[in-house]
């Protein structure tokens, strides 16, 4: 589904990603871990099309297409979804409005008619129960005055409704208490399917207790320094990132 080859990315003159290689197939869950400043967030931003980054070398191919050449909204319509670390508050736009605008943009992109108003409400109400959110949230302004946990749930709600192919979760566990973490994880787990892939960017292992990854990659200083299965996350939790940085330095 996503093939990243030798990706180099800079901000201004400063190289952040220095040759990332990653193959992600449908149905897989990949966790990207790493210390602060390793380039984790840059990777999720560059995949979703945020401006302010320069690709100096390498490629990212999504479903056979050049992902990096597409504007962010086209990526989103093609099925790439970024769950933000810090979801933005948009006073004056209701949640339900944004959901409808987004869903209809996807449908239009695929040559489908606008969603029927009743079908849409049924769909949204079903998903909102899944995330244990109050229906009132739908009519409130996007993320405005939401608690940290509510914002993250709202991201997963959008994901559940838009049904993307490639879900990128950027530090979704940050700022969540344990109950909210469970709800968010259940929401993500309910979306697992053979035709959908997940990239979870996270600093800590705890999210991975609830969402079991197939692969864990450790990012340090702009490169993937180690890849492995779910057990790698546990090892990291135990030994800390310095363990890898030390072994890398030794190598």
């Amino acid at each position, binding site marked *: 589904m996503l093939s990243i080859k030798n990706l180099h990315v800079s901000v201004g003159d400063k190289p952040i990603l220095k040759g990332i290689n990653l193959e992600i197939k449908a149905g897989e869950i990949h966790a990207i871990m790493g210390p602060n400043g390793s380039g984790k967030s840059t990777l999720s931003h560059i995949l979703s099309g945020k401006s302010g980054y320069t690709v100096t070398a390498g490629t990212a191919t999504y479903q056979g297409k050049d992902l990096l050449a597409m504007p962010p909204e086209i990526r989103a319509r093609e099925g790439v979804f970024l769950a933000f670390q810090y979801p*933005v508050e948009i006073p004056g736009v209701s949640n339900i*409005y944004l959901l409808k605008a*987004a869903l209809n943009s996807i449908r239009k992109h695929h040559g489908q008619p606008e969603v029927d108003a009743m079908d849409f409400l049924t769909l949204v109400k079903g998903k909102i129960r899944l995330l244990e959110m109050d229906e009132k949230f739908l009519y409130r302004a996007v993320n405005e005055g939401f608690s940290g946990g509510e914002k993250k749930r709202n991201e997963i709600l959008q994901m559940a409704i838009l049904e993307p192919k490639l879900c990128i979760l950027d530090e979704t566990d940050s700022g969540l208490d344990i109950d909210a973490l469970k709800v968010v994880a259940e929401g993500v787990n309910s979306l697992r399917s053979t035709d959908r892939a997940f990239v979870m960017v996270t600093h800590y292992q705890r999210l991975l207790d609830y969402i079991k990854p197939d692969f864990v990659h450790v990012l340090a200083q702009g490169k993937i320094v180690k890849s492995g299965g779910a057990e790698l996350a546990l090892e990291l939790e135990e030994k800390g990132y310095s363990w890898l940085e030390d072994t890398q330095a030794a190598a």
Partner: protein
Amino acid sequence: MITALASRYTAEYPTIAPVLCGQSLSWLQQLRAEALSQFSAQGFPSPREEEWRYTNVSAIEKKLFSPATSIATSAIDKELLKSYQLKDAWSVVLIDGHFSAEFSVLEGLPEAVSVLSMSDALEKQPETLEKYINQAVNNDKHGFIAFNTAWFGDGLFIHIDAKQVLEKPVQILHLATRADVLTATRTVIVADQMAEASIIETFVGLDNAYLSAAVTEVFVGANADVTLYKLQCESEKAYHFGGTYVQQARDARFTHHNFAFGGLLARCDIHADLDHASECELNGLYLGVKRQHIDNHTRINHLKPHGISRELYKGVLDDRARGVFQGRVIVAEDAQKTDSQMNNRNLLLSNDAEADTKPQLEIYADDVKCGHGVTVGQLDEKSIFYLQSRCVDEETARNMLTFAFANEMVDKIKIKDLHDKVLEQVLVRFPQEGVNKEWL
């Protein structure tokens, strides 16, 4: 120079004076005479006055707008009227500055509430009016107020008895139909203690140049609660001066929502004097396109302790439009424990648009909580990216965010029908590719 120009109006005054309302009332005649002499001496306000520094009204002095002596109802565009008249409300229509019984809807008004045209009220309740007229503007006299006092030909008097809770809002709909007409109206709203009411002032006009000069005085009794909405949608060639002057008694609440959308040059004053533990909330939204100039001047005067005031004004300015916000909060020495917050946010959509903002806090007490914030800027890039990542293209995202910025103020309207009408006016002014009304 200004006096010479303004004297066109004073020169015409002797022909106008005999037909103005309240001829037989000596106190009113005296007020008018004093106002006329003030106006003759000073004319309309000039940018040399601090509170008018961003707004030059000399264009009004170069023309001569004259009052209508009669109303021609045959010329009324009923569709236009209908598009602004609220369904579930008592409504009073003033055409070219004069009360029209034909178009007003006042059936079922409770006895404890009186709604009378100003000329009627001056005949039937002169003693009551004498207690109120010019009392709320007392400390605020500038050229437009003097002009209005001398020239007003009609207007409205609304009196809500103590403890009355008005179940439906009262709408005052001003419609200007003629070119070069002057509509000078004086409205007095009195809510006695513990009364509650919502009142809407709507200003519209046909596609002409004209001058609306409206002064509204509001007296909110002890523990009474008045919400006043103003929807200013004058024609794009019109001049508008609207002053709202409020006296709040102890524990009185006053909320104002100011939607300043129309006019070539529009100026709005909202001034409130607060007593012990009064609460005052001022909300405003001004939208300027083309060469519109829209000026808002607010003043909240905390005179006694424990008052609360909240103020949020937002402006969206496109093309060569200019928006002005001058907000003053005064906390008197005696007004300890005052809690006041004032904010003004401006969104500039073009390089030629301009926002002038001047918040002022004047605090003479030492135990108060007062703050203010001002922003002038463009749309937030983070928000644009967030929407793009949710499938929305950049231009639509910009439109949505512009709309959202304004819509925050529209969403504060508690009357559904009015909410929808104001929303419509916002959408008309900023054609929003991608803002789907059916989805809102």
